[in-house]
């Protein structure tokens, strides 16, 4: 693990054994995050992006098995935790969750406990990871709510999730995740369930807090627009593979993988030529029970090379500025 990274995922493979067969949901994902860096993970449903994030928390579904790879996290005191080597319930893991790694979820409606007040839920995290007194916890919780720009924080502490709007709930969720000053925040599509105006506010909030607290953020989304706005680096996922990872500018202006290019072309633009038909990616996402041989994208790739792409799994190719892609086009 390199000195300056806070999180490093190497060769992660996760599969599900199901009655219908084995689903290889994550196939050799590699990425790393530096302190204070925002990594965007983009991909469609089922591409394994949420699962990769869950593996950082060691909270994979019980029927999921990690067949290969490692997830390493560097705590603020310098200790490196090999997360997947830890037991799901171990003390070290529980200390990490909520304490060093915060997580926010997609559905603010259902991701907060319906029977506890916002304040109580934030204080639960505080009591697990800090030794603040009850009174100090209340003050800290109110400060946190003020930090996420909720009005009247003292009153808000007593509110229950169903009394708040979606945006307010997501703010409470963020306050909860940040309550113990984590050095890494996992955001699993935190704005997908919100309307566009609220989404913009929440994104601004996450960005300003990230700046203020200098924490690393892994932001999972299927929205390239969101990524362009907040990410320093981007990882594009397709069928359990991180097909390309690069700095945000390189992803948008110098994409190396045909899937990244195809995705970018299928975003509607307001400025481009008028009455242009929106480009789409040919075909369908393959059945996860029968993944294509060779490169998983070859069934839909416009630049497929017969023979090579259909039979050989491409290796990672490295470019300048830490850009990497899994594609035969760039291999000698």
């Amino acid at each position, binding site marked *: 693990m390199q000195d300056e990274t806070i999180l490093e995922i190497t060769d992660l493979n996760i599969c599900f054994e199901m009655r219908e067969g084995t689903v290889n949901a994550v196939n050799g994902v590699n990425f790393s995050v530096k302190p204070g860096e925002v990594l965007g993970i983009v991909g469609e449903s089922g591409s394994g992006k949420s699962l990769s994030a869950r593996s950082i*928390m060691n*909270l994979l579904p019980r029927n999921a098995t990690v067949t290969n790879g490692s997830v390493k996290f560097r705590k603020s005191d310098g200790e490196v935790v090999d997360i997947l080597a830890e037991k799901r*319930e171990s003390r070290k893991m*529980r*200390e*990490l*969750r*909520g*304490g060093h790694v*915060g*997580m926010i*979820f*997609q*559905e603010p409606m*259902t*991701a*907060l*406990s*319906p*029977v*506890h*007040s916002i304040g109580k*839920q934030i204080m*639960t*995290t505080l009591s*697990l*990871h800090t030794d603040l007194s009850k009174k100090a916890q209340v003050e800290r919780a109110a400060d946190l709510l003020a930090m996420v720009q909720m009005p009247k924080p003292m009153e808000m502490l007593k509110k*229950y999730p*169903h*009394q708040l709007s979606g945006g307010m709930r997501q703010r409470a*969720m963020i306050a*909860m*995740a940040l309550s113990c000053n984590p050095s890494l925040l996992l955001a699993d599509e935190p704005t997908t369930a919100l309307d566009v105006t609220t989404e913009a506010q929440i994104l601004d909030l996450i960005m300003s807090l990230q700046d203020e607290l200098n924490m690393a953020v892994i932001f999972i989304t299927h929205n390239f627009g969101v990524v362009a706005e907040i990410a320093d680096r981007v990882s594009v996922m397709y069928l359990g593979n991180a097909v390309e990872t690069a700095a945000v500018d390189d992803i948008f202006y110098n994409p190396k993988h045909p899937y990244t290019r195809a995705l970018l072309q299928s975003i509607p633009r307001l400025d481009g030529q008028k009455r242009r038909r929106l480009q789409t990616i040919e075909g369908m996402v393959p059945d996860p029970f029968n993944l294509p041989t060779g490169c998983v994208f070859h069934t839909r790739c416009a630049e497929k090379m017969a023979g090579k792409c259909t039979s050989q799994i491409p290796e990672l190719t490295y470019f300048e500025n830490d850009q990497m892609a899994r594609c035969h086009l760039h291999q000698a």
Partner: protein
Amino acid sequence: MAGYIAHRLLWSIPTLIVITIATFVIIQLPPGDYVTAYIAELVETGEVIDAETAAHIRHEFGLDRPMYEQFLTWIGGILLHGDFGLSLDWKLPVSELIWDRIGLTLLISMLSLLMTWAIAIPIGVYSATRQYSFLDHLFTVLGFLGRGIPDFLLALVLMWMGFLYFNFHVGGLFSPAYENAPWSFAKFGDLLSHLWVPVLVLSTGGAAGLLRIMRANMLEELGKPYVETAYAQGLSERQVVWRYPVRVALNPFISTVGWALPALISGDVITAVVLNLPTTGPLLLRSLQNQDMYLAGGFILILSVFTIIGTLLSDILLVLTDPRIRHS
């Protein structure tokens, strides 16, 4: 909150009035009255009563007066003097008969209710958190067996086995030696040695059903995103399960706990008859068979009041435990 309770209490008054009238009318509906049933019983033993004597008895009990007059006398007695009338069958005041048995009834019912919950909730939670494990399958089989075997059959089997293998005195709550003895430590011990059979019988069926409900509720709650959030906060599995989903999964229990109150009194009549328990259930059954209208009416009135209070109690409990209800 206080306003809510007052509102609910006020509304229970008209409900009670309607229930008492309905009760009284229904008891009078079958052809004949207590005297007819009484005469029929006497005829079976070979005695004959002529029409004049019958009319005399009727007059004595006030059965020849119009129904509304009988009703008003009855309800007036209850409201003004707490007098539930006279049991025609037992020739004893109704209140004496009922209160006599209510203590033991409450004891048995409370114990079996607690036992039901003590069995059902932990097993339901375990089954849900370890779905499809060996023990989950085992509890599922036992649950369906417990649900499927009628209580009275289980009671009979237990009595038979107790008699055959352990030479127990079965049935009833006391050995003959203690039946009419004053309360003593020995009598209490004797009661305990008899008590486990009805408590076991009465709790198995209920527990088997409840544990299925608890398991299903828990499975639904465990799949909800807030459970994942709780894990992500750093809580251990035990803390997550008991603090969050169990609390939500208990709501259906809380909303029906009020029904346990009337069930405490009426109990499981068939089991009580089979086990020869001196509880209120068999007494109610007998009063209905004999058209002992004041006794039956008194019973049904008490049950209705308990139902109304119970429902109110569980509504208040639900409001206290579930903020979603409190604020809507």
